Structure formats: C-alpha cells, structure tokens
C-alpha cells in the first residue's frame, strides 16, 4: 500500500497520547502519585494537544474533509466509523479529567474511563487494517497488539520526559524503575516486531494470477494491464520505493524505534537526565514514523496481480 503521511502522523501522535493517558491513569489509579498541578499544567494539556494534532492530521487524508462528520454514521459495521467516534470520546474524557485536575482530585471512575477509552481507540484504529482479510500482513491479531504496544512505549517515554521536565518538587522525579519499565516495554515491542516481520516473510499469498484470472494454465503471465499512463490502481497500492530503500529502512526502524531508545533508557536507569530522556523520546518517535510507514508499505494488496505489466 502507499503510505500516507496524514495517517502515519495521526496514528503515531494519537497513539502516543493514548499511551501517556494510559500510563498516568494506570499509575495514579491505585494510589495517587502525581500532583494536580503536574496533571493540569503538564500531562493533560500535552495529551490534548497531541490528540488535537492527530485529529487535524487525519483530515488531510480525506478527499472531502468538509464531509468528515458523515464518517460517524456506520459504526455498526465499519471500524473506521468506530474510530471516528472513539477519538472525540477519548478527547472529551481527557478534557473532563483536565477540568477535574484543575479544581480537585481525579476520581477513580474517571481514571477507569481513561483506561478504557484509550484501549478502545487502539483497538478501533488497528482493526481498520486488521479486518481487511485479503491483506494477509495485516489480517492478524498482532496488528492490534503492535499498535497498542508502540502506543504504550511512546506514551511511557513521553511521561518520563514530562516528569523530568517538571521542575517543582510536588511530583515524584523520574525514577530508575520508570526507565527500567521503558526498556522492558521497548524490548517486548521489538520482539513483537521481529515476530511480525518473520511471519510476513513466510506468508504465502492466497491469491495468485491463476485465481485472479481463472485461466487454467501453469504458465500464465500478464502482457498488458490495459493502460499506459498510470491510474489510481497503480498509484495507491504500492509504496513506489526500491528494495534497497526498504531494506535500509528496516535497519533504521530497528535502530531508532527500539535499540537506541533501549540503550538511552538503560543509561537513564542510573542517571535520569532530561536531555537523555527527551533524546530517547525524539529518536523513538522518528523510528515510530518509519515503522508506521513500513506497516503500510509491507502490506501486499491482491489487486496488484492485475497491474504487473504496462504493455
């Protein structure tokens, strides 16, 4: 598939915001550890800003953005429609939590709602891709797990950075344990990615030229796709990059998304500095953009069987 930057930015930014909200809800839910000032002046505004930026980015993917409101109509059948509802719901719950944090403490039910809505949005976003059964790279439960896990890693790294940026003494400092958890999360995400790539490599396409055309002959090839100037079909379903580019990008993904942040966060276990943490976050986010690009690029669409040779 052709990766679209609007969707890449949308899924990574909202994923990070979800991870941040999930992390603070998860930590503060059993026993209050964050100060109200940190939540109302730092964590929630950052989460809301990321969600808003993500929402804005998603509009650039539409041919007719002025009709975007219509996308909430078919929630009974469409995961895209469910996502369109889940995102504003998460934003609303975050905003309510923000209002609470300005005046009083956040109650358990609100933390609980944040946890649930963050998970629901991850599921909706990933299911959009997972539910297309003939894109075999996507049609697997690991799609949801990968979206969730990478949302958690980026959100967790963001939380570590935000805590270390918070100068007042009313909040716990970034502890070695938090950096350690970041390393563990990144390690899990790395293993999942390697597993997914291995699975993709071993996939056998269910469709082939014989099933696509129904012509019964073992020696079958296309000699013309019926057009010479290109069309939507030749543009939309392929990444238009060389094999070498893809190979190199895979290395960059491994290094930036996983390995470099793991090394930096391992250092941060003993010496957590704002510079170290924010560097880890930035490199991880860059890697995440590449990872999401690759997620689209490595999806093989069976319609490409019909578009193999110009003439």
């Amino acid at each position, binding site marked *: 598939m052709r990766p679209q930057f609007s969707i890449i930015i949308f899924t990574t930014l909202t994923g990070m915001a979800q991870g941040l909200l999930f992390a603070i809800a998860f930590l503060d839910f059993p026993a209050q550890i964050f100060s109200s000032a940190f939540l109302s002046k730092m964590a929630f505004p950052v989460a809301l800003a990321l969600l808003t930026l993500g929402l804005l980015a998603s509009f650039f993917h539409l041919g007719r953005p002025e009709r975007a409101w*219509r996308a909430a109509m078919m929630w009974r059948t469409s995961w895209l429609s469910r996502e369109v509802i889940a995102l504003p719901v998460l934003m609303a719950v975050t905003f309510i939590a923000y209002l609470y944090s300005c005046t009083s403490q956040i109650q358990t039910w609100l933390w609980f709602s944040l946890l649930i809505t963050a998970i629901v949005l991850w599921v909706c976003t990933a299911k959009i891709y997972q539910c297309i059964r*003939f894109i075999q790279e996507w049609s697997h439960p690991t799609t949801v797990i990968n979206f969730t896990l990478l949302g958690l890693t980026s959100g967790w790294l963001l939380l570590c950075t935000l805590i270390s940026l918070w100068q007042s003494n009313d909040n716990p400092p970034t502890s070695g344990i938090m950096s350690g958890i970041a390393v563990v999360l990144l390690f899990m995400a790395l293993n999942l990615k390697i597993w997914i790539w291995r699975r993709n490599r071993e996939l056998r396409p269910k469709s082939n030229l014989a*099933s696509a055309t129904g*012509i*019964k002959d073992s020696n079958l090839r296309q000699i013309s796709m019926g057009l010479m100037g290109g069309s939507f*079909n030749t543009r939309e379903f392929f990444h238009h990059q060389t094999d070498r580019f893809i190979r190199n990008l895979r290395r960059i993904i491994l290094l930036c998304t996983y390995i470099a942040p793991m090394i930096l966060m391992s250092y941060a276990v003993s010496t957590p500095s704002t510079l170290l943490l924010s560097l880890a976050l930035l490199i991880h986010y860059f890697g995440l953009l590449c990872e999401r690009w690759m997620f689209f690029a490595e999806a093989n*669409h069976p*319609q490409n069987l*019909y578009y193999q040779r110009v003439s």
Partner: protein
Amino acid sequence: MSQTKQLALVIDLNVCVGCHACVTSCKEWNSSGSAGPLTDLNPYGANPTGTFFNRVQTFEAGIFPNTQTVHLPKSCLHCEEPPCVPVCPTGASYKRKEDGIVLVDYDKCIGCSYCSWACPYGARELDQERQVMTKCTLCVDRIYSETLPESERKPACVLACPTSARIFGDVHDPESEASIAIRERSGYELMPEWETHPANHYLPRSIMETIEAARNDS
C-alpha cells in the same frame, strides 16, 4: 443465494478480442451520464491519467508455440458479499436490495479510499478531480431509462462489444441468458478464495481444448 434480483455481466473469454470498445463506451457514457464526469488529468500531455470503470487486461498462457492470448475485461464485479460496503464509514457505499448493484453515493463519499483498500479486485478508483470514490454502476442510469428505446436499456459496454462477449442479465433468475451461460458453459468467479461471491462471471476459453481434441483426432 437470495431470491431477489442480482444484475450482472457474464463475459465470454472465447470471443473477447481485446478491442477496448467496452472501455471507451463506458468512459463516454459515464462522463455524460448522471454518474459523470470521469476526470482525465493531463489528457494531451506525456503522462495522461484518468478515471475508468472498466479495463481490458491481456494475459498470455502456455509455452510457445502452444500459447494463447486471453483478454480479460474487468470492472466492478458487484459481489453478492461486497467487502467494500460494510467498511464504508459514511454509508456512501451500498448494495441495492432491488437489483444487487453496488453503488457509491457521490454526495456522501468523503474520499477516504478505505473501500478501495477493501476491494481485492481493484475495482474502485478515486476520481482525482472530484475526490470521491467512483466505480462501475452497471449503467444504472441506462438500464432503467424510460427515454431510451428498450433495446438500448443495457450497460454501454454490452452494447458496444462487437463480438457480443458481454451478456447482461439477472443471475438469480435461472432462465436468464446470463444464468444459462454460467450453468452450461461453466462460468466462474474471480478470486473465489475470498468468498466475496462476485455476481459477474467469466466463461472460460474452450478453443484450446477444441484444437487439442482436433489434433488428437487427426
């Protein structure tokens, strides 16, 4: 299979000569009919590109000298279980209950392209100028027209085909010409593995078997 009507095309690969008359007549009718215009970008430049509902693709089978060239016209197959319809977030993509035609409501489409991802056949094209998803309508504005003479109330591609390779009819009516052709000449579906149950069928080539049989006889 439900009892309601399912209009479809049955395409005879024995007689398609790959002339692209169905492609151009489709483009002509649908640019001037109620579905149009089908935009062309840079039509007189070096790299023209445009929206089409119908394509003729050519395949070669066999090893020389026993090869055959097969032309395969492909448009929306109006699946009985269209995977493109449930994924549409706006409801712009729908399958008509009364005749099984899969259509896009161009006034509701937001141009997110999700339906085109969800079609294994690549039957949908986003119109570059109108920024809405477009696809074969089975000439829904022709076949029910009350102003056209009755003999012309067929899809433009069917009327244009010089070899009558395209049969139009109700594949749920066992007595229709389309159903009889599927039944008697082993009409098949494209990519049956995804269980989309395309309404459009293809009639396989029998010429090579005939030649082979004649060779064996002589």
